């Protein structure tokens, strides 16, 4: 005979109230795990989506407005290129990528085109490393990436989507789809722009924006050929949404008081709203778990103690101390909490696998880290719910063993 034997046999003797209790706990934990899992993968998916949208913060010269996000650099005003280094060397959290740009008009085979100078990421990374600061003070990708190093070769066409390019030679260009179509340009072709010769590194896919009519070249080459000096028209920043809300824009404003910082507020806000809604839903279900599961457990244990008054009185007559009776009731609650927590995690994970594609259009997989949370919460709730019934049981008058109950 052990305490576990007594608890186990008693639970087997009265399975119906036990299953009812368990159901409340399992349902609560299921809801919690399912929504947390879907939320997690939904946030990841939205973060990836945001990443693919490109820059969500623009740094512009003072007094320049934004009428068209994709044409924000077509204003003729300039900023010092040194701002890029200032950002990379700063302690600002949430800067995921930077793309400084300078636009100049040019002729291509007698046709007017816009040449946009862009600085490949590898160059300002190298500058920052040389300055001893390392690149950015936070993990790249705002947590949207898996953390596994991506060794795939970089596709220059990704510029159309990501608005940042990893490497670009000083005499290489990327050609917008419309320009390439008009001038029958293909990868590897040679062209003359601003009095210099360039090789077409890639033809960008159609974006539907003004970028289709542009030619992208190395920023420093454009500055040199256009005689503009070390200036840019805009610095596009890919910022992490959470850090944007937490003060990245303020930080940039303080860092660059002579510039104007603009966020793509609507995009960021939508993401923030979705995340907040999911988090609130998750908390709501947690509250439901605490309220319904705890109340059901407390009620069932209270009834259980009432039903077992004579048995408890007899155990006391046979030598059970109040502390033992307390352990007997609390032990039962802990067993129910553990079973409910594990069961809820399993059912919740399976539910999330099904609900993910249905509700958030994302593929999800079980999150093992939620098992500990589910178990902890379920045990805490059952433990709390058992305290009053256990205290009542421990204070039962043992003389009840002599009475007919």
């Amino acid at each position, binding site marked *: *005979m052990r305490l576990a034997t007594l608890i186990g046999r008693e639970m087997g003797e009265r399975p119906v109230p036990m299953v009812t209790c368990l159901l409340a706990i399992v349902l609560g934990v299921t809801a919690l795990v399912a929504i947390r899992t879907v939320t997690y993968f939904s946030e990841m998916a939205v973060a990836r989506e945001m990443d693919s949208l490109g820059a969500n913060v623009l740094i512009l010269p003072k007094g320049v407005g934004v009428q068209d996000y994709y044409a924000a650099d077509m204003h003729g005003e300039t900023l010092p290129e040194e701002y890029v280094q200032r950002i990379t060397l700063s302690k600002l959290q949430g800067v995921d990528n930077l793309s400084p740009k300078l636009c100049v008009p040019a002729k291509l085979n007698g046709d007017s085109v816009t040449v946009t100078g862009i600085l490949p990421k590898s160059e300002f990374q190298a500058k920052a490393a040389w300055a001893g600061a390392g690149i950015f003070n936070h993990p790249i990708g705002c947590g949207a990436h898996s953390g596994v190093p991506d060794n795939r070769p970089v596709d220059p066409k990704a510029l159309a989507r990501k608005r940042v390019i990893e490497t670009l030679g000083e005499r290489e260009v990327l050609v917008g789809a419309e320009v390439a179509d008009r001038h029958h340009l293909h990868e590897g072709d040679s062209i003359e722009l601003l009095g210099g010769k360039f090789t077409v590194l890639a033809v960008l896919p159609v974006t539907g924006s003004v970028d289709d009519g542009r030619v992208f070249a190395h920023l420093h080459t454009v500055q040199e050929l256009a005689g503009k000096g070390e200036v840019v028209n805009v610095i596009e920043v890919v910022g992490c949404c959470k850090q944007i809300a937490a003060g990245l824009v303020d930080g940039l404003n303080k860092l660059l008081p002579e510039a104007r910082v603009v966020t793509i507020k609507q995009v960021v806000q939508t993401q923030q709203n979705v995340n907040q809604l999911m988090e609130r839903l998750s908390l709501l279900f947690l509250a439901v778990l605490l309220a319904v599961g705890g109340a059901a457990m407390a009620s069932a244990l209270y009834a259980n103690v009432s039903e077992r008054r004579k048995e408890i009185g007899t155990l006391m007559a046979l030598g059970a*101390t109040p*502390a*033992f009776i307390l352990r007997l009731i609390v032990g039962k609650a802990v067993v129910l909490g553990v079973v409910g927590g594990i069961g809820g995690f399993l059912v919740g994970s399976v539910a999330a696998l099904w609900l993910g594609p249905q509700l958030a259009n994302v593929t999800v997989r079980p999150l093992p880290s939620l098992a500990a949370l589910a178990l902890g919460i379920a045990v805490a709730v059952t433990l709390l719910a058992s305290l009053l019934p256990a205290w009542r049981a421990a204070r039962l008058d043992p003389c009840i063993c002599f009475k007919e109950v």
Partner: protein
Amino acid sequence: MLRLEAVSKTFQRRGCPVVALQPTSLEVNAGEYVAVVGPSGSGKTTLLSILGGMLAPSSGKVYLDGQSLYDLSVTRRTQMRGSRIGFVFQTFNLVPYLTALQNVQIPLYLSGKSPREQRRLAQAVLERLGLGDRMQHKPGELSVGQQQRVALARTLANDPALILADEPTGNLDPETREQVLQLFDQFHAEGRTLMMVTHDPAAAARAPRTLRLVGGGVTELSTVGRVQVA
């Protein structure tokens, strides 16, 4: 063995005091077999509860082997009850979801014995009471007489010096009642002290000493009385 000094018990019912046991001084020597008789509501169960260390008296002292029971902490008193006192109940009070063997193991477990020792002692006492082939049966699978014998085995498990029985034959047919009373005679012969509350005159007649309780007052009916109602 047992000594009561001016022990009384008064309950409050709807604000009114109800005397369950008038001030009583009583001595029961080791090895005595005492029957307590009296009508319903006369205070028999109250007396048994006080003697068993389960109900603190309103006044007076209760001594078990010279130790004042109610001067002990609840835990210590519970431990003393588990090791020195055995209870027999009218409705047996077996735990329905445990087997006969497990029911007998309960007091052994509560007194801190190892599972192996519990099993060995429980098997021995069940075999002694003729239940060797019923150890794995639950109470619901046993006859009424067998259930009472399992309850008696549980009482004996910790080898108590004092046995307090509350109407032990009240629910039994005549044949089983006789078996139980014979077992009580055996326990007495082994030198244990027995106090048996009963309505059954024939059962009371088996005890060498009888106390009568009426309206919370104790009077000696037979043999060597040491009763005085203060």
